[in-house]
């Protein structure tokens, strides 16, 4: 690295690392994401459990004691008739009531009345349905003289363990893998876009402040662009390192297996190549834009293009190595995100990795060359936006 490139890189790094936006994104955003997952669970488990009362009119005489014993989502209140229950509901003394007819064990039909609809997806409802099903199963089988062991087996007939087979042995899938597999590429993607955004804004700012020409009298456009990309790349690596450290601490605390070193290195390769590729694209956008508003419109389109693979996450989860996903993993703008997700989710064939790295590297060389040519002329362009043909002429040199 030339000394001037180094000076630009260090200055870009030190200037941007102190920015409020960087600090907020680095420390606050992961916290918000984690909290957005924890808070609903906490809410479901605590706030929703705050002593609401459910009335039960049990005409069988056997369901109520079992419900009182097993169902913890509501306080169970024993009621004598449906009329009494309706009155209590109307007076808001109970939040709902269950009418269990005398033939419940045989027919399996039960009614729940409430002012607010009980969501069939809520844990309170699912728990209630499970307990009532169990009561019916137990009742019917006991009547037939089936043993308690078999009844228990009937209630929970299978237990499936999901295991990902890796080269180094077996890796048991845990709930965290899902979160990690989605969050990690999302974080890396955000870091790339963030650093790319700083590059874009930096170029526009230099154009708007008209400081470019002073810079170009002391440093070549290539040195300036390289310095910016390297400095902001360092910023991206710092950001990812902070996030990774957090993930390592959390996973070791929860004793959850982390990605292997091999996968980690491959992910970082795609992260770095992806960052460099997108930086050159952002440099092009910055060079041809005449104002921040101008550049934001174009960069929003690019960001959306890059974001597409994340929208395909559930498809990728189902089959990370299907032909369509493999093909997407070889199209330059999608390569970094698709490959990071595929590597996390499966054992990607070596050939796919090599092809993706080669395609991305060639695209990178081409995009950096184009960016350098456009940057050289574009950054001195004030006022009017160049036409497409004009930009083509710059590229042809």
């Amino acid at each position, binding site marked *: 690295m030339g000394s001037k490139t180094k*000076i630009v890189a260090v*200055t870009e790094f030190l200037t941007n690392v102190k920015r409020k936006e960087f600090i907020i994104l680095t420390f606050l955003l992961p916290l918000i994401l984690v909290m957005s997952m924890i808070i609903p669970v906490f809410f479901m488990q605590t706030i929703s459990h705050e002593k609401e009362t459910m009335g039960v009119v049990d005409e069988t005489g056997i369901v109520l004691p079992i419900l009182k014993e097993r169902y913890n989502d509501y306080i169970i209140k024993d009621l004598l008739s449906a009329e009494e229950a309706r009155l209590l509901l109307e007076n808001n003394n109970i939040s709902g009531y269950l009418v269990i007819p005398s033939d419940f064990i045989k027919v399996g039909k039960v009614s729940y009345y409430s002012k607010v609809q009980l969501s069939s997806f809520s844990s309170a409802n699912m728990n209630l349905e499970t307990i009532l099903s169990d009561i019916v199963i137990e009742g019917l089988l006991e009547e037939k003289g089936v043993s308690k062991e078999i009844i228990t087996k009937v209630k929970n007939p299978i237990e499936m363990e999901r295991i990902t087979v890796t080269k180094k042995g077996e890796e048991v899938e845990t709930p965290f893998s899902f979160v990690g597999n989605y969050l990690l590429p999302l974080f890396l993607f955000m870091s790339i876009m963030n650093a790319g955004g700083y590059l874009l804004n930096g170029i526009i700012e230099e154009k708007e*402040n008209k400081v470019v020409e002073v810079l170009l009298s002391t440093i070549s456009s290539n040195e300036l662009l390289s310095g910016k990309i390297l400095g902001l790349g360092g910023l991206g690596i710092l950001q990812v390192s902070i996030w990774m450290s957090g993930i390592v601490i959390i996973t070791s605390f929860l004793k959850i297996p982390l990605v292997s070193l091999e996968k980690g290195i491959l992910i970082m390769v795609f992260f770095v190549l992806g960052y460099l590729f997108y930086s050159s694209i952002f440099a092009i956008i910055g060079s041809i834009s005449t104002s921040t508003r101008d550049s934001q419109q174009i960069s929003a389109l690019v960001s959306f293009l890059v974001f597409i693979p994340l929208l395909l996450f559930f498809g990728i989860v189902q089959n990370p190595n299907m032909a369509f996903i493999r093909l997407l993993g070889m199209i330059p703008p999608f390569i970094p995100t698709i490959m990071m997700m595929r590597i996390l989710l499966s054992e990607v064939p070596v050939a796919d990795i090599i092809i993706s790295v080669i395609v991305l590297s060639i695209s990178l060389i081409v995009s950096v060359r184009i960016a350098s040519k456009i940057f050289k002329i574009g950054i001195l362009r004030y006022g009017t936006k160049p036409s497409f043909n004009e930009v083509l002429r710059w590229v042809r040199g």
Partner: protein
Amino acid sequence: MKVIELSNVTKKYNGRVAVNNFSFTAESGKIYGFLGPNGAGKTTTIRMIMGIIEPDSGSINVFGEKLSEESKKRIGYIPEERGLYRKYRVSDILLYFGRLKGLSLEDARKNTEIWLDKVGLKDRANSKIEELSKGMQQNVQLVVSLINNPDLVILDEPFMGLDPINTRNMKEIIYSLKKSGKTIIFSTHQMNEAERLCDHIFLINKGTKLIDGSLEEIKKKYSKNFVSVEFRNKIIKLEDIDIIQNVYYEGNKAEIELRKNTNYNDLLEVLLHRGDITKYEISESSLESIFVEVVTNGV
């Protein structure tokens, strides 16, 4: 010593000639002025000297060689389109550019202090650029170009946007640079400033050099004999006097252009018979009038 040497330099933008076959030489310790209207090709020429844009043909040598990283460090430059990072502190900007111009961190710090003192901004070292007045920002811009004590200083429209006090300060700095043996090249369309400052002038129009010489040489070659006359009463027409080329009236005053190789005393003698003269003043053509004449009539 030749500081800059341009030979037959041409630059076109989309087929339009910006600079046409331009040649000139600048020697050390002198002030050179590029004069011409907007769009004359001054900025393009300066940008080519600075290596910001490449000429289509011709050659440019700076300090006897093609512009190199080393020679760039010996040049201080204020571009026409100038500005600074608005959110940066003054001292941070000066350190950044000082380092980019090859100074060690220690020297960059030392020079920052010296120059800020010189331009009266020592107490604003920690201010952000956006907190400074326009004149102060211009001074910081000037310090950016001089921070590494360059041998050649190129200023593109240095007086643009300056108030009278800052214009005077800028002129003083240009003089002091000359005194310390620097070569200064500046472009301007303000002819009066150039006339006062420059040792050597290039008049440029539509990318072509029209006049090249010292102020004395140019005046000798292109200046016309002008006489301002004021009569006590209204002037009777003077066109019939055969030694007069042109005459412009304004009340009881007249601006008279004499034919070449005529004598001021001959005119005075004739005019004394035309009325009571209260003022008779011989004046030379200003650089501006020479320029207008050359551009419009190609004289």
